């Protein structure tokens, strides 16, 4: 019998090889893909986020765990698609126009994917129209905007305005974050939430997804 705790530990330790092997073995023993994700993998990434938040994990540990999560997820994807399992939410994420910084955005994207969200990462220097177009195309319910600089974060407001002009503002929850961004700024530009770090951003996204489901 496959020990799912081993999968949990492999993700926590950033051991991609073991994570993939245990996931394969579990599937061979007919453990449902969704059970693997819900009982071992998502809790492991949650713990990674918690450790990152309390400065026990740093950028390498987070990226290594995300890599292990992806390796374990790979053999599960076809089964998940066939089962019609729904993601925790659909997220469009990107670094706003004028800004090319993306490590923070990548960390958030990795934790979101690890948390069961379907993530469309638009990369960096993303124009408001691109966010609008992608939300329309993917039917996303969460938009995450990142910026490093105090001046480029003004593009966050332009993006929110763009979503509003396209009639999409009610459809999506907009979360913002990045080095220069503050909670006060998030409120000023009409964002729905501010993530102080990658882990907090994922907790926010999860709360938003839950609220939408309940609502």
């Amino acid at each position, binding site marked *: 019998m496959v020990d799912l705790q081993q999968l949990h530990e492999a993700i926590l330790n950033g051991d991609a090889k073991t994570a993939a092997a245990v996931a394969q073995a579990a599937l061979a023993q007919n453990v449902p893909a969704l059970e693997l994700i819900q009982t071992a993998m998502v809790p492991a990434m949650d713990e990674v986020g918690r450790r990152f938040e309390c400065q026990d994990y740093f950028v390498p540990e987070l990226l290594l765990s995300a890599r292990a999560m992806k390796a374990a997820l790979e053999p599960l994807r076809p089964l998940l698609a066939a089962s019609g399992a729904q993601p925790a939410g659909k997220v469009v994420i990107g670094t706003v126009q004028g800004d090319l910084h993306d490590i923070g955005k990548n960390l958030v994207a990795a934790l979101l994917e690890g948390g069961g969200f379907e993530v469309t990462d638009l990369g960096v220097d993303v124009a408001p129209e691109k966010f609008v177009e992608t939300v329309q195309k993917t039917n996303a319910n969460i938009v995450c905007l990142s910026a490093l600089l105090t001046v480029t974060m003004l593009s966050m407001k332009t993006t929110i305005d763009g979503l509003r002009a396209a009639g999409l503002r009610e459809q999506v929850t907009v979360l913002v974050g990045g080095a*220069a961004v503050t909670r006060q700024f998030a409120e000023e530009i009409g964002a729905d939430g501010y993530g102080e770090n990658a882990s907090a951003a994922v907790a926010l996204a999860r709360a938003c997804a839950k609220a939408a489901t309940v609502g």
Partner: protein
Amino acid sequence: MLERPFKEKPDFQHLRAVLLRERKDGPVPLLELVADPEIMSEVTGIPYPAEHAREFVWGNPNSLDPKTLELGVAFMDLSIAYSAKLGLDYATMTPLVPLHRTRVHLANTGVGREQALRSWQDEHVGLITTRDDFERYRWPSLDQISILPIEYAATKMPDGMKVMVMYMGIFEDLRQLMGLEPLAYATADDPELVDDVLEGLTRVAEHAVGLAAAHPATGGVFYADDMGFSSGTFLSPRFMRQHVIPRLKRIADACHRHGKPFLLHSCGNVLALMEDFIDVVGIDAKHSFEDKILPVEEFYARYASRIAVVGGLDMDLLGRGSEAEVRARTRQILHACAPGGGYCMGTGNSAANYIKLENYYAMIDETRKWNEEHGC
């Protein structure tokens, strides 16, 4: 417009005394890590093609083409003219180190300047991500490193002014050479490779900093090495203590050997490493502050009995705030940090091309007024 220069004559000896916390009296000096060419052009009225500054600073000093050299000389002239116009005690110069780096992307930050390009390092792709890459990488020989800008400035600076040498640090260059993501993976997959790249960079840095510090026109070394982001260090403090901190000490020693102050600029939340910077590396001053992480006056209260503190006026305020707000915040910082000495006024990061010039002037003007009101 600035009502008048910050001071009539440069006095690097006073700046040095403040950085070494040798005296508490006298005016609060101004000090920045760097000013972007756009800001220097606006202050002096001297046009300069900002996008070309990097070609000179990062070029191979032994094979600069005449056009690049001409732009380089114009850039050094611009730096000196900028310092003279503002009434600063120093001119910033950079040793020429022909290190091959990863791709740098340019983007317009969308601020109200025609040329407001900022460079961004590629975080996904590195020049050295495997042992083979490392073996193939062409490290500059030590004799290719040049302090031409310092030698040039020595002949051009007004009396009383000295060169503040800006040197980009080994951790920042490690990220440049490996890319942050490949570096993160390598810390687990191949830590020896990370160590070897760091050693190569340290060898170059030790030599360049030593060479620069030895020059009589050099007043100090401003070592720029971003090691953190908003909530912590990129890599664990344990990793940094093992692989980076001892090497920073070697670089600081190369400066101290010539009796010059060694200032550390490091962005992000690096508080976990402060004791190492002070006790092991032996920094004389710390620069780069964000109100969101720790307002400069709180940092000053914690560390000013051991090191000098530089700058701290938040970049967000300088970029988006009003002149009145900048003046008020400048006063607030001076009130907390000036009386105890060991403090230089300046921005939280640099005179970057995305701050408002009127706000930058307001910070300078308010500091001058503070000094005059206090009989300095």
